[in-house]
């Protein structure tokens, strides 16, 4: 086999200029494709991270059916057994309780439907970093009787720090819920929807308001990274078989659909790019076959089997493609490495649009290994497909005709 490899490698450099032109097309195609893939994956990671770290967390536990019908009666009682079961799962880094429901909020002369989220302030802050989103005022303390509101909600209700907001709604089992709360802080939430509707308060105060002592609607759970989600989810399902365990993907299906559709458009662009590259390789292979017909005839006549000759030519095709791939990947690594730490900032309307959608106004990059090996795999598959041409040609080759050519 080594002699075939040696022969194939030497053969591709018989016409250096042609090989360099062909590999250059692969090289630039790979750089372009890696760059595009890196931008896509970097953006998706940023979107996912924004969603996970600003609201949903990696995993949540609910009463069965809560996610489909987010109603306060679809809640569960929090107890030390639940806490110890979660603590037993080593992948889990932190978890926090929430009581979420909807009610009416009224300021001096404006009323609006809001989402009330009762939280454990220190734990919640570790997960969603609400204190980091403060525009005005201060963050909640444990046992605090005040509230934090989204900036758009505050603007709508004309609220400032220390103003009072009245909440009126329905508690557990139809109990009436009403209370007035001073505004401690105003946050700029990255999700426009939450920025327009979120009222955040201490969980005890929330449970009192809705007559739900010890009751939660969700437990938000964080793991080290996305890689641990599947394993942790399985462990949680095992421990909480009677409850609803959801990961961030299930909770953010709309985002995933958007990502999938964006990925599909990327695949189409890459497909077109690779088809153009493939035609370059096909051209080279056709020339190789035409130029070396006599040589192939000689090799077959002196005793080389057709399959052995096919191996050599197939290796040549693969080498032409893979030289470009390897060079392209090596060249793209430092470029991506630079952009990984220096994302391209958006300005003007693009910046505003990104901010409105709740994302950082910058183009992020990723260095996921799959971005690189996918290119190698695609080119490899293409070269194998292109290899069908020499395979058929050599199989059909008539030795005496080849010798005369």
């Amino acid at each position, binding site marked *: 086999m080594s*002699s075939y490899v040696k*022969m194939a490698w*030497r*053969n591709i450099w*018989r016409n250096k200029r042609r090989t360099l032109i062909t590999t250059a097309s692969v090289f630039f195609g790979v750089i372009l494709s890696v760059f595009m893939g890196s931008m896509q994956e970097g953006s998706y990671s940023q979107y996912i991270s924004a969603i996970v770290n600003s609201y949903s967390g990696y995993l949540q536990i609910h009463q069965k059916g809560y996610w489909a019908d987010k109603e306060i009666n679809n809640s569960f009682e929090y107890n030390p057994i639940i806490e110890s079961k979660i603590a037993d799962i080593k992948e889990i880094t932190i978890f926090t309780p929430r009581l979420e429901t909807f009610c009416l909020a009224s300021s001096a002369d404006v009323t609006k439907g809001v989402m009330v989220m009762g939280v454990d302030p220190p734990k919640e802050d570790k997960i969603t970093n609400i204190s980091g989103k403060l525009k005005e005022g201060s963050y909640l303390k444990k046992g605090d009787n005040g509230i934090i509101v989204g900036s758009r909600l505050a603007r709508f209700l004309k609220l400032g720090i220390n103003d009072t907001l009245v909440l009126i709604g329905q508690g557990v089992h139809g109990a009436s819920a009403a209370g007035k709360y001073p505004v401690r802080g105003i946050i700029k939430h990255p999700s426009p929807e939450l920025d327009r509707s979120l009222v955040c308060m201490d969980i005890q105060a929330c449970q009192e308001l809705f007559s739900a002592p010890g009751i939660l609607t969700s437990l938000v759970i964080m793991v080290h990274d996305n890689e641990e989600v599947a394993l942790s989810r399985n462990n949680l399902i095992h421990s909480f078989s009677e409850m609803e365990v959801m990961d961030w993907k299930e909770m953010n299906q709309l985002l995933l659909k958007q990502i999938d559709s964006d990925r599909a458009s990327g695949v189409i662009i890459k497909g077109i790019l690779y088809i153009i590259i493939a035609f370059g390789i096909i051209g080279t292979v056709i020339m190789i076959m035409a130029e070396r017909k*006599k*040589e192939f005839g*000689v*090799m*077959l*006549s*002196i*005793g*080389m*089997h*057709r399959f*052995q000759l096919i191996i050599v030519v197939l290796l040549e095709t693969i080498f032409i493609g893979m030289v470009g791939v390897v060079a392209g990947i090596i060249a793209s690594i430092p470029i991506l490495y630079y952009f990984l730490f220096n994302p391209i900032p958006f300005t003007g309307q693009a910046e505003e649009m990104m901010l409105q959608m709740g994302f950082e106004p910058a183009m992020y990059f990723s260095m996921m290994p799959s971005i690189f090996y996918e290119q190698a795999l695609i080119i490899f598959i293409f070269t194998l497909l292109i290899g069908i041409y020499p395979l058929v040609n050599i199989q059909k080759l008539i*030795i*005496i005709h080849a*010798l005369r050519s």
Partner: protein
Amino acid sequence: MNIIEIKGVTKIYDKNTIPVHALNGIDLTFQEGEFASIVGPSGSGKTTLLNILGGLDDATDGVVLIDGVDLTALSGAKKTTFRKNKIGFVFQSFNLIPVLTVQENIEFIMQLQGIAREDREKRTAELLEAIGLSDRKNSRPNKLSGGQQQRVAVARALASKPKFILADEPTANLDSKSAENLLDIMGKLNREENITFIFSTHDLRVMNKAKRIITIEDGKVISDVVKEEIHNLI
């Protein structure tokens, strides 16, 4: 002992539906150690005969027995293996593999035969010595003269220890000195190692060196002369 025996070999090319009879019922035998030359005008059927003897082309009719094996009955892959082990080829335009060095070109067939590296190297060294190109073993073919390339081609043909060597116009692309030199080498190999050579040629120098001259015209053997027999008669 007959190493080649052909009986009633016919080859008809169906060129644009008008059949062309390249060979018309040829009967020939070759014995081990022959140094034979097939001669005749262009289009007489020399190359076709050589191609059929080498298993590169199939006879339309007739029997081709090489070393007791009916070549016409072999499948494509078996014929390739047969060629690799039993027949050596020397072509008019050398046809060495350009990306391989002299040594690698000679070793190539032995590699295909699966011969161990040490044995290959030993055999290659012997052949390089025989053709007087030991000092050029690491050169690529394009660095050699035509005569040197054809000597390497002879060494390559001998590498697999074939039963006989078919040489199609081996001196056609060589100057007279290189041609003489090549014929001397082949003559020596024939005399000292009893290697069978069958040439197709127009070259008088080859005919002069040949011990047997077979003349073909219009696909038929019109004369088959063994020089020694004529000498004996004289």
